[in-house]
């Protein structure tokens, strides 16, 4: 492990009964890197995220974040060290307003005024300040995605995990999302799980392909898109 490494797993396994959802995953992410994860359904991408964030305890293997072991820690403890996630299904506080949602996400300061400023600037940056006082439960799916994304941005973690952020977004919203991701990448490391190859092309630099709980191959976007093995397991249907 070099000092430039932000996240590293070695021999990471997660089994459910007899199913090996993660099987000896050795993964490494540099500081400030933007990485895409792809793979067919059930390849282990979401399980990988949940193991990194502590929602699942690893069956075996280690997870290092900033050189510290975090495998098996409480979810909140891992989040405090600087791992933020936007989950696959919008995971928000439905009974609270948009502003309150983002307000809760700010942990960097205890000062009320500073907090309010961070909240306001995040809302403006994400273009949702006009719905700031609406209860989140009443919003459409796409807007809820942006609310959750705003929460992660307001939280300002060193590593941002995005699980299918483009799902259910309009094409306009998708373009906007790609811009946001590039913007975030200036001072954050990101891992993005995505199905939409179009979207991967928009944001992609380096791509890791998961298959049956293992890392199949890791390469640049272009190389991955022309890789035969990847086509066989996954792209055969959707990249045509």
């Amino acid at each position, binding site marked *: 492990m070099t000092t430039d490494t932000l996240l590293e797993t070695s021999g990471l396994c997660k089994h459910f009964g007899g199913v090996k959802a993660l099987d000896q995953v050795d993964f490494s992410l540099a500081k400030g890197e933007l990485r895409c994860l792809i793979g067919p359904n059930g390849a282990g991408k979401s399980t990988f995220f949940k193991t990194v964030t502590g929602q699942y305890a690893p069956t075996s293997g280690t997870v290092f974040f900033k050189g510290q072991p975090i495998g098996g820690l409480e979810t909140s403890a891992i989040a405090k060290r600087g791992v933020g996630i936007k989950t696959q299904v919008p995971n928000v*506080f439905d009974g609270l307003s948009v502003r309150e949602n983002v307000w*809760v996400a700010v942990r960097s300061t205890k000062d009320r005024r500073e907090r309010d400023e961070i909240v306001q600037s995040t809302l403006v940056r994400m273009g949702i300040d006009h719905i700031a006082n609406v209860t989140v439960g009443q919003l459409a799916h796409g807007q809820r995605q942006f609310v959750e994304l705003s929460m992660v941005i307001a*939280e300002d973690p060193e590593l941002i995990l995005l699980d299918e952020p483009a799902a259910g977004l309009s094409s306009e919203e998708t373009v906007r999302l790609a811009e946001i991701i590039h913007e975030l990448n200036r001072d954050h490391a990101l891992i993005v799980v995505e199905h939409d190859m179009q979207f991967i092309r928009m944001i992609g630099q380096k791509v890791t392909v998961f298959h049956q709980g293992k890392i199949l191959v890791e390469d640049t976007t272009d190389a991955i898109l022309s890789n035969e093995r990847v086509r066989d397991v996954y792209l055969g249907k959707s990249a045509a």
Partner: protein
Amino acid sequence: MILKRTYIELTAVTLIALFALIVFPKFAQFYTIISSTIYVSLAILALSLAFIWGYGGILCFGQAAFFGLGGYAYAVGAWNFDATVYGALLAVIVPTVFAAALGYFMFYGRLSDVYLGVITLTVTLILFKLVNSTGGDAYAIGKAKLGGFNGMPGTPLLENPLTEEVLSPHALYGLAVVLLFFSYLLCKAVLASRFGRVVVAIRENETRAELLGYDARPYKLIFFSIGAGLAGISGMLFANAVFVAPTMFDMASTARILIWVIVGGLGTLVGPVIGCISLLMITTYLGKTGFVDPNIALGVILIVFVLLVPRGILPLLDDGLNWVLERLKISREKSGGRVL
């Protein structure tokens, strides 16, 4: 809009508190003052459950346990210390510490709602049995004989710490009103704080809160303990207005607290207080006439509200008020349009 609503609520509550404190005792009869003291002290109990269940989402079927512990802690303290005010302090400390210990097992075991309800209820019932079995001289803490089934009548009453005079029934009533008001303000202040907002967020979505770096367990534990402390204050006042007895831990005692909250409206603070006082008046009346067993009335009310009015009365009134306001606005716009 939200701020305005909070402002209206605070003003209304303050006005009612001032009325209850200054105007009401001028014309109320002596007997009414005494029963009002009981109602107000129990209203704090309703408030405590409204707080932890309505905002913290903590399903506590054992609020009566903290109420009873508060009452008994006061009684034991009042018998043993020179100044009864130390008993009052004990009445807050004992339930809070007990709740923290119980909460450790429940929240750190990450037990679900249903289990929480069952455990808190069970704790209450066992405490009832324990206290009920303390008859005889063998069961005494210092000078305080626990008295088993008979409770502890004749416990020294609260004194004014400055003059060392025992509080008159009117003064006790005034103290109860003031404590209810400040308990309400405390709840409001906690909910407006960062801590309170995080607790509400945890109730909304615990996973999300944890993914944002908030460990739900200590938040719930502290919130739960605050509610227990409030219930302890209620028990202390009750011990002064009536006297402590094992029925404070009774299953019926804990059930009616839930009923007050459900009838008044879960997720509000004012509703359960209203629910508490109005239901106490109804059950007292029923008890006097002896026509229907109060348990039947409470049972039917609980079933009917859960099945038909699950949100309680206050949200219903709120909806009604909004509906009327909307109508007024529409008709004003219409008539305004005609003039122009």
